[in-house]
């Protein structure tokens, strides 16, 4: 406060009052848009999923086939060399039964997530996805599985274009 001011002027306003007609307000949303790109490699991967195919990149130096694809080999520090299709079959590398859903609600039927080493990709390279049409008690590491795709007209270029993987 100063010599001329003994109390603070002004009117405290609640959030509700701000939205009412009590005072004149100016509302604004800046036109701040962003475009997030999946990148060259992952973008092509998603485009191929829409076509019902799984694609990877091959590094000729370490002879690995990398899925999901990357334009750069993180082991050799060189650009990867070529696109290669891999199969939509694979082997369970590891899996987990979850009795909680994405919102942490308890559920009766477990969601089964698994890392699946893809046939045609290098050992230990694969994708994380869901398993279905399978008895949870009978799942084992090393089990052969195959992708169950959405019908072509419903695919949108996302990993969910594969519904789940079922035993071969």
């Amino acid at each position, binding site marked *: 406060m100063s010599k001329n001011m003994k109390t603070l002027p002004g009117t405290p306003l609640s959030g509700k009052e701000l939205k009412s007609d009590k005072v*004149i*307000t*100016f*509302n*604004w949303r800046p036109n701040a848009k*962003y*475009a*997030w790109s999946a990148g060259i490699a992952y*973008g092509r991967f998603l485009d191929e999923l829409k076509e019902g195919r799984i694609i990877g990149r091959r590094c000729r130096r370490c002879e690995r086939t990398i899925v999901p694809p990357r334009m750069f080999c993180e082991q050799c520090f060189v650009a990867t060399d070529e696109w290669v299709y891999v199969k939509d079959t694979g082997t369970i590398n590891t899996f987990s039964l979850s009795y909680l859903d994405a919102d942490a609600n308890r559920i009766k039927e477990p969601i089964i997530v698994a890392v699946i080493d893809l046939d045609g990709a290098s050992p230990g390279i694969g994708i994380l996805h869901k398993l279905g049409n399978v008895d949870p008690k009978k799942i084992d590491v090393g089990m052969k599985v195959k992708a169950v795709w959405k019908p072509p007209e419903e695919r949108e270029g996302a990993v969910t274009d594969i519904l789940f993987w079922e035993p071969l």
Partner: protein
Amino acid sequence: MSFDKIRDPRKIRHQIGDMECDYVYTAGITGERFYLALRDEGKLLATHCEKCNITFMPPRMYCDLCFGELTEYKEVHPRGVIESYTITYENRDGKPLAEPLVLAFIKIDGTDGGLIHTVNEIQPQSLKIGTKVEAVFEVKGKRKGALTDIKHFKPV
């Protein structure tokens, strides 16, 4: 090929998002009075500092020079002089405008300040610094308590 730079993320698979950073701005005590007078009475209000002999337009609550609180409001005529102007051919997003827009700083008569506003009803080539202009108000009932309650300024 793998190092070809893609500068436009929309050329490949992408996601468009909207940043929801909304804000609500209140005009404050003096601003509220200024906008209410504009909306309800079609008047321009200024504040005056007796000690420093400054008339603030738009009105301020405190004097810039002596920091004294200003309680003296006075109505000023909604006319003034173009002190500076620019002609814009694009909107805020860089899209071409159908008609060029004249934006000017108008020093309001009888004050030491002024308003930035659009100038209409004039050929852009005959614009001059020093042109006398007056406010064209929106009709009462359509006024919302914003600077756009003045539609534009036009030459006197």
